């Protein structure tokens, strides 16, 4: 297993820049998830790590070795593709053994390796079948087997679960996580699904338009998003982003939310660092996760505030109920307890947890606190 360092990597086709200088470093055994909307460059970056795409400038280091110019087969990596890319003309066993065959591994050794992997993934009974005779989940398993048998420095996964149905996807996600814990493998995993990113990663790299937006642990990315894009991309339902203003309030500050059509709302804030106090009187964007707005379900403490809001609609999801509220004129989503029932048009007091409040510069959209 190896570390991976991506240094100032750029990719351009003619005058279009696909990747605009990416820096990512992960340690041995980490699970890096590249996440972002389609077209953000995550798959291109993965292809470049694999050696399937050339690097326009910058360096890719696996372990301590610069691999920019190495053929994919010499980078000691294994890849699981979105379509699984199983060779249709070969049996499962032959699929798994193909890479070893190319490396001229003796037959006996290959047989043993196939058996080991088949056992690990519980697919001994599938070895003689053709890919066309397998279900989606089984194909996925074989694709993983083909990667595992290689014992590579790094595993690359390119949206491996996106072709599975919803339930199987959740099961396989757990399997992959278990496998990572067991093998302590270094993994780079591409997905557009932020839940996969949150559940699997030790480190998430959020990308957009060929630029890295944030690199951090799942909790960092979730709780301290670097900008409004990350804030709204990670989490479902996504973070409420409410345009507001910082105003003086007594000794300290308050957040003023005022839509020009309705009466405004002021929420007194606890003492803030200088970086925030510099914004007094200025427009900002306040970010609140749905679970930071509630009613009875929120534990009250000194940083919770009661606010008046109009309830627009409720959407029970089972474990909880989502409520669309009008807060100072803006629609926000709140996560309420499962049995919360309100008549439409209800107006009442709701609770806001300020420990979960983040604020962004309204111009740059970068987080200020």
């Amino acid at each position: 297993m190896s570390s991976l360092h991506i240094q100032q990597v750029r990719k351009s086709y003619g005058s279009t820049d696909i990747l605009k200088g990416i820096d990512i470093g992960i340690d041995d055994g980490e699970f890096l998830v590249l996440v972002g909307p389609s077209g953000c460059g995550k798959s291109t970056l993965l292809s470049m790590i694999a050696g399937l795409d050339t690097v326009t400038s910058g360096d890719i280091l696996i372990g301590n070795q610069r691999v920019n110019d190495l053929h994919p087969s010499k980078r000691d990596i294994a890849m699981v593709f979105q379509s699984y890319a199983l060779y249709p003309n070969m049996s499962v066993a032959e699929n798994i053994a193909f890479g070893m065959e190319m490396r001229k591994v003796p037959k006996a050794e290959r047989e043993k390796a196939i058996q080991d992997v088949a056992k690990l993934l519980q697919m001994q009974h599938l070895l003689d079948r053709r890919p066309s005779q397998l279900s989606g989940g089984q194909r996925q398993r074989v694709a993983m087997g083909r990667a595992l048998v290689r014992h590579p420095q790094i595993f690359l996964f390119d949206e491996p679960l996106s072709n599975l149905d919803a339930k199987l996807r959740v099961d396989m996600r757990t399997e992959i996580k278990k496998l990572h814990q067991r093998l302590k493998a270094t993994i780079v995993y591409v997905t557009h699904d932020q839940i996969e990113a949150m559940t699997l990663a030790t480190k998430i790299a959020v990308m957009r338009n060929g630029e890295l937006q944030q690199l951090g642990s799942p909790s960092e990315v979730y709780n301290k998003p670097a900008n409004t894009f990350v804030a709204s991309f990670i989490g479902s339902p996504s973070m409420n982003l409410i345009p507001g203003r910082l105003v003086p309030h007594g000794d300290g500050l308050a957040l003023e939310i005022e839509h020009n059509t309705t009466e405004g709302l002021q929420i007194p804030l606890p003492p803030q660092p200088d970086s925030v106090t510099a914004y007094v009187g200025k427009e900002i964007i306040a970010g609140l996760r749905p679970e930071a707005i509630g009613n009875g379900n929120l534990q009250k403490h000194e940083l919770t505030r009661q606010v008046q809001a109009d309830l627009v609609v409720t959407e029970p999801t089972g474990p909880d109920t989502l409520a669309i509220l009008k807060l100072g004129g803006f629609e926000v989503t709140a996560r309420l307890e499962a049995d919360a029932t309100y008549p439409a048009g209800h107006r009442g007091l709701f609770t806001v947890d300020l420990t979960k409040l983040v604020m962004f510069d309204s111009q740059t959209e970068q987080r200020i606190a």
Partner: protein
Amino acid sequence: MMTIASSPRQTRAASFADWLEVRLPKLVLAPSVLITLVFVYGFIAWTSILSFTRSKTIPKMEWAGVLQYAKVLGHERWHVAVHNLMIFGVLYVLICMVLGLLIAILLDQRIRHEGTLRAIFLYPMALSFIVTGTAWKWILNPGLGLEKLAHDWGWSSFHFDWIINEQMAIYTIVIAGVWQASGFVMAMFLAGLRGIDQDVIKAASMDGASLPLIYWRIIIPQLKPVFVSALVILTHLAIKSYELVVALTGAGPGYATELPSTFMYAHTFTRNQLGMGAASAVMMLLTVAAIMVPYLYSEVRGPRTSSH
């Protein structure tokens, strides 16, 4: 910053393999490209040059300007050939399309033994017309063919001698040409019909449209790309038609069924007029190119923009 574990010797071997790998695809493709450049484009150039020389029996590099073109264009047989091509081309394309579409629509009505019928409509395309022309020639023969059949069956006034009639002979070429190619057009239309979204048809019939109306207003308009393909392919086949005439009439009676293709062959190989043969070939090529180049351009461009 970097440490390379392998020995220098291995690296050199590896880099040679990589060097080769980058160039191998182009190297392997190169012979085909070269062959195409020489034997298609080089030969086109060669024939074009020849068409501007005084070549007769053998190629002679003596500049003659547009003399050969003037000779071809002033030649009575060329006039007949072009006139025939017009008649043949228009009727062949038109009848093939109408007949092909009609049979395709008939076959699309959940017909039993559709596969067998399809095979029957298409087999003429699988056989050389040199072969089937032998039969056609005989069928069209006034003494022994259809005319005699009609007489035997009691229709004694039936008269059908087009193949030996200078005015009508070109129409026998049309009949045989349509017989040969309309099944192909049928197959194109049938594939087009099978590709149409069935829900649209269900919706239309729920709106109260009758079946003929559904075909006329909804289905046939959606077959526009097939019409374009069929038109282009048939037109270029018409210009290239050669065996039809050779097998059926030998360009006769007299030279009543001459086409540009037979004109070119006769002047090149039997009348020792290489220059005129070349000039007529160039004119054929230009006509085909005018039709095919825009079509191929759109066809090659199309998939690329959608898949990349």
